[in-house]
């Protein structure tokens, strides 16, 4: 008999079609045509393929502006952010970098100024860790109809893989801090059109910095620094310089525009705080949250909590506008400097109320209210490192609305 394979069948008498989207720069991808069969058990399905695609019924997207795009936190589950939905913040777009000609230069106060190819970097001992990355400008308020994505969608989480920067420091012979004990710094510089540059204390490089080339199993995505980025666990996202082309070791900070004009915040007494690297602990309820509408009865309140200073130890939820707080469940494993999924069961009786969450990290830091932050820093502070408790109003008809904060 003639050999009838699945593919010949599908190519011939098949009732379900397969579209293969083919372009000159991507390989073919499987896409099922969403013509809904009356009964999927009576039609052959789409055969296996090289690369899958989302269900055409799913419309989960980032919210993009000219300078950033925000992760749809309210649509996500668990803790991993799909790589193509990782938030973006770049200062002049995503460059196209050829991995075959890519080079990382390390120079300055080192024994052996060295150029590494991508293949060189991949030969070194590697490390992987699941950790969040948050832009320190990740705060918005102002209206009731704002989703978690709009309020704080500039945070995402991936499993990052790369070589420890300390390994490269040893390889090039980074010289110890200056004779007078002044701490050393290094400059991290990107190969994008902004030639992004940040000064980082050497200490962080020795501690846990990663020269990352992979994200969630695969190569970094272009928007996250392909082929190579710096990854500084727990630190404000801008310091994890993408499209990394150069590290210079020195004995003082460079005072780049991104650590003076930007990524600094006014504090009391007319002072401006600089080199505020740690991401302060934060949490947000992602369900229920605008724009969902809920029904009376049991509701599992869900959200994310994280701290740039270490592990989350406690998340509390209030369902009575902050009067009483109850301990939420934390999904294990709770990882260092990582988004943690928290959950809390609540029986809603239909009365108007406000729900909110607050996190405490292992250093004893507890997420403050908006008023506490303004009180501590003064009304002149900007939007950097602004991590207040987010409250959601539950209306009697089940609508869930952001409770806007009065900025000034």
């Amino acid at each position, binding site marked *: 008999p003639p050999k009838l394979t699945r593919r010949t069948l599908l190519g011939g008498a098949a009732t379900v079609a397969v579209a293969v989207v083919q372009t000159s720069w991507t390989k073919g991808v499987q896409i099922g045509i969403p013509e809904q069969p009356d009964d999927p058990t009576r039609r052959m399905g789409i055969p296996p393929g090289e690369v899958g695609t989302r269900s055409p019924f799913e419309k989960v997207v980032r919210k993009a502006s000219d300078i950033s795009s925000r992760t749809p936190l309210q649509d996500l589950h668990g803790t991993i952010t799909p790589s193509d939905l990782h938030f973006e913040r770049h200062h002049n777009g995503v460059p196209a970098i050829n991995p075959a000609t890519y080079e990382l230069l390390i120079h300055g106060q080192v024994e052996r100024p060295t150029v590494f190819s991508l293949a060189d970097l991949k030969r070194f001992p590697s490390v992987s860790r699941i950790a969040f990355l948050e832009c320190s400008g990740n705060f918005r308020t102002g209206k009731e109809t704002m989703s978690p994505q709009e309020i704080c969608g500039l945070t995402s989480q991936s499993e990052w893989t790369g070589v420890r920067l300390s390994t490269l420091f040893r*390889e090039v012979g980074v010289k110890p801090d200056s004779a007078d004990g002044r701490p050393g710094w290094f400059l991290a510089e990107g190969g994008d059109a*902004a030639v992004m540059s940040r000064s980082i204390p050497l200490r962080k490089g020795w501690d846990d910095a990663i020269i990352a080339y992979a994200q969630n199993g695969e190569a970094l995505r272009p928007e996250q620094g392909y082929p190579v980025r710096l990854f500084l666990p727990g630190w404000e996202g801008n310091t994890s310089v993408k499209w990394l082309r150069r590290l210079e070791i020195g004995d003082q900070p460079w005072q780049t525009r991104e650590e*003076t004009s930007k990524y600094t915040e006014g504090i009391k007494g007319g002072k*401006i705080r600089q080199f*505020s*690297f740690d991401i*302060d602990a934060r949490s947000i309820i992602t369900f229920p949250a605008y724009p969902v509408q809920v029904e009376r009865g049991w509701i599992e309140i869900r959200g994310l909590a994280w701290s740039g200073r270490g592990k989350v130890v406690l998340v509390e939820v209030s369902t009575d506008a902050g009067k009483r707080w109850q301990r939420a469940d934390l999904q294990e494993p709770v990882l260092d400097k990582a988004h943690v999924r928290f959950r809390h069961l609540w029986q809603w009786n239909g009365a108007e109320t406000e729900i909110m969450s607050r996190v405490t990290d292992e250093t*004893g830091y507890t997420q403050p209210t908006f008023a*506490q932050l303004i009180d501590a820093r003064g009304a002149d502070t900007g939007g950097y490192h602004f991590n207040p408790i987010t409250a959601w109003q539950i209306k009697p008809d089940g609508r869930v609305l952001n409770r806007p904060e009065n900025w000034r």
Partner: protein
Amino acid sequence: PHAVGDTLPNRFGFGKPATAAQISRIDIDVRPDGVGLPAGSGTAAKGQVIFVSKCAACHGVGGTGGAQGALVVTAPAPGKRPANVIGNYWPYASTVFDYIRRAMPFAEPGSLTNNEVYALTAYLLSANNLMDEKTVLDAKILPTIQMPAQKRFVPDDRRGGPDIH
């Protein structure tokens, strides 16, 4: 029981020595003490000409604000606070040179000559009343310019714990 741990080598031998040419091609940073500043010079007058043609579309006439923000101190609108710009917020003059050279003009970054960058820096510093508009700006002068905001800058001193300030 295995070759790593204490026998982890200090060097693996991967990568190639960087030549001086490779380094100087991309070693573009400029520090507050002037390290990294190139040869060349420029005046505010020359800077103004360049600014009008290459910068004002985004930053406004005289750098006083456009779609991409002001660069020069201006009187705030009544009841508003002044915008954070070079003259009232930037702690070091070197950053003006460094940033313009690496990133501006936005649609053609890296297109300016060093002399043009000196001129634009001179123009923006004098428009902000940070240097005399007649001064020829070069690698010697730039690090000597004092910025009023410098004394306001403090490093983050929070070390975890309940401190939220």
